[in-house]
Each structure stands twice: as structure tokens, then as C-alpha cells.
């Protein structure tokens, strides 16, 4: 009887813990729709148009003037450490690399800050 009760309690605690974990994961990782939205922006010729210069997984008619993404041997996490730094790079690439041949997506208002964050979420998810 005691053993039975203990088991029930254990299951309940376990369930509560699992729920907490799911909640924690949801707040740390971007919502799936953010990644999807970022991908759509990256592929859209009138928006990010990343494919004009970079190959991306699943993209067609991609250019090759910039490196294929994700880059071989270095992840976005290794390169930028935080997603905020990736957003800052997309916003004004010349600030980080003076000879960058890349549009200043944020500084020149090609994309909004929210859109840049979505693109960053998408790029962050590439492995």
C-alpha cells in the first residue's frame, strides 16, 4: 500500500518535472514558427534573398559568391557566440568585416529588427 502510494507520487512528480522541462525548453529555444518565418525570409527574393549569394539547405538556384551555409567546420554558435551578435552582424556586416560584400540588412532597412531575429533563429537552427 505504501509502496503503491509512493509510486503514484513518483509518477506525479515525474510528470510535473517533465512539464517544467518542456516549458523551460520552449522559452530558451525559438518557437518553431520563428524558424519557419526566418527560412521564408531567407528564401524570399524580395526580402532576405540570402540564396542570391549563399547556398542553404533545401534552397534552389542558389548563388555561390558567399560561403554555403551552414559553413563547413564552423557553426553559427562558434562564429557568433550569441544570437544577438548574429543579428548585429546581419544588420551591419561591414562593422564586423570591413571588406564584407553583403547588404546592411538592418542599417539600410531591408529587413525589420523582428525579421532579422527570425532569420537569426533560422540560421541558428542549421546544423
Amino acid at each position, binding site marked *: 500500500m505504501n509502496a503503491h502510494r509512493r509510486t503514484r507520487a513518483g509518477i506525479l512528480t515525474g510528470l510535473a518535472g517533465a512539464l517544467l522541462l518542456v516549458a523551460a525548453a520552449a522559452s530558451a529555444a525559438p518557437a518553431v514558427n520563428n524558424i519557419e518565418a526566418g527560412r521564408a525570409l531567407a528564401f524570399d527574393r524580395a526580402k532576405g534573398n540570402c*540564396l*542570391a*549569394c549563399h547556398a542553404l539547405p533545401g534552397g534552389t*538556384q*542558389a*548563388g*555561390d*559568391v558567399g560561403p554555403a551555409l551552414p559553413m563547413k567546420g564552423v557553426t553559427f554558435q562558434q562564429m557568433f557566440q550569441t544570437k544577438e551578435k548574429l543579428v548585429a552582424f546581419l544588420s551591419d556586416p*561591414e562593422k564586423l568585416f570591413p*571588406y564584407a*560584400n*553583403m*547588404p*546592411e540588412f538592418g542599417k*539600410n*532597412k*531591408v529587413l525589420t529588427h523582428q525579421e532579422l531575429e527570425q532569420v537569426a533563429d533560422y540560421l541558428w537552427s542549421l546544423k
Partner: protein
Amino acid sequence: MKKWLVPIVVVALAGNSIAANAVNWWDLGNTKVGPEQTLQQFHEYFKQQFPNMPLEKYALGAYAFSPQLYAQYQEAMQFNPGDLTLSEGQKLWDSKFKNGKTYASCYPDGGKGVAAHYPMFDSKTKQVVTIGMSINACRKANGEAPLSYGSQDMIALQTYLGSLSNGMPVDVQVKGPGAVKAFEEGKAYFFMKRGQLNFSCASCHVAYAGKYLRDQIISPVVGQSAHFPTYRAAWSAVNTLQKRMEGCDKKVGAQPEKLESVDYRNLEYFMSYLSNGIKMNVPGYRP
């Protein structure tokens, strides 16, 4: 020396020697070196990029980089739709002004080989004169009203006069301080980043020549002027190099200039000089 050290040293030395001589595309934009050295540096840069490509092949633009595309080009050139504009131009060229003269009377040798030397710098007016301007100057001298730049008749005449230099190498002269100043201003325009997308002409046509932008190969600047006016499938028509500049300016989100503006003429002067030595082929055919 330890065995494993040898390859490392060899690689390091090779790396150093390449780095010492490599021409960086952004260093080509120096507007103090003058035309001769500019041309030399551009030739050296492209030679490093494409060691097996002879200079005359630059006349093919993007087609030089893909055998499949080149096969399509050869087929298209058997009946270049641009030839219709060429024959329109010939008709206009041969028709008489009210005074009984023709365009041929304005040019040495009836216009043969003339376009290969254009644009040229006029030291009297201190500005770059293009083929289009020379056509209007000819009309004025014969009591005719000028044609507007970009009009069908003007394009057809530019095309025909250009074709009278076909097979001859581009030979643009930049001599004297005024000419050099115009050349350097054209060079500055070429290297200046502009527009919402923040690209210069050089960003693509120097740095990324031969590479793909989406599904299109980027042509190198060397050789571009030699086939204009050109038929472009994207236009379904023949048009001029300056029309193409307008298109590029618009694509990068910059304010395009008017045809035959000072900037566009200086830019055409600079670009044409970079094509010196490459054979004219007007009208060209491009995707």
C-alpha cells in the same frame, strides 16, 4: 630537420609567396595610379583569378565560364535578334539629311573603326564624348534636330556605328590631365558602394566575376563594353551599356542617373578603357 616539419615549412613558404603577390580586388580602386597601371592591375588580377583564360576570351562575358551556356550562345548568334536593330540602324545611317549628306560624312573612313576609339575625351569642352553624342553632333552640324538618348532610332544608330568596328580591338585613349581626371572619376563611380543593398559595380564585376548570383554567372568588367549595344533576352531588345548601368543602379536600390549624364559617361570611359585590346562584337547577345 625533422621529417614532419618539411611539409609544414613548404606549405608556409608557398602560402607566403602567394600572399605577397596576390592582388586584392579592393586595392584596384585606387584613383591615384593612372590609366596604364590600372589596366595592368586589372589584367594581373583577372589572370590570377582565371590563369587559363586568354584576354580575347573576355569578349564572351559570362559565356566564357560555362561550356553549356557557350553552346547556347553560339546557337543564338546564328540568328541574333539584335540584327534586326542593326539593319534598322543601317537604313537610318544610309538615309540622307535634308542637305543631301549622310552620317558617314561626319566620320573618318565613313565610320569604319571609329567606335573602337569611343568614348573619347574632348579637350576643348573638357568632357567625355560618347558615340551617342557624336551622332547628335553630326545631326546638329547638318541642320537636324538631335535624337533623344534611349530612343529606338538612337539605339539603332549606335548599334550600326558600333558594328562598323566589329573585329577590331577596343582602343580607347586616356591622355592629358583632363582625360585622366574623367577616367578617375569613372573609376571612383565604379568602386563606390551605393543603394539600399550597398553594392558597387566592382563588388560583383570584379570581386565575383565568373561566380553565380542565383542562377546567373557574373561577367567580368573586362570585355563588357566591347559588345554593347547588345541584345539581352531579359530586355527582349537591343540597348546600350548606359541602359545596363541604369538597370544595375536600380537593382542595388540606388537612384539611377539619366542617360549620358556626366557620371555615366565617365563610367563608360573607364569601363571601355578596361576593354582595350578586346575585339568589338556589336550587337552582342546576352541572357
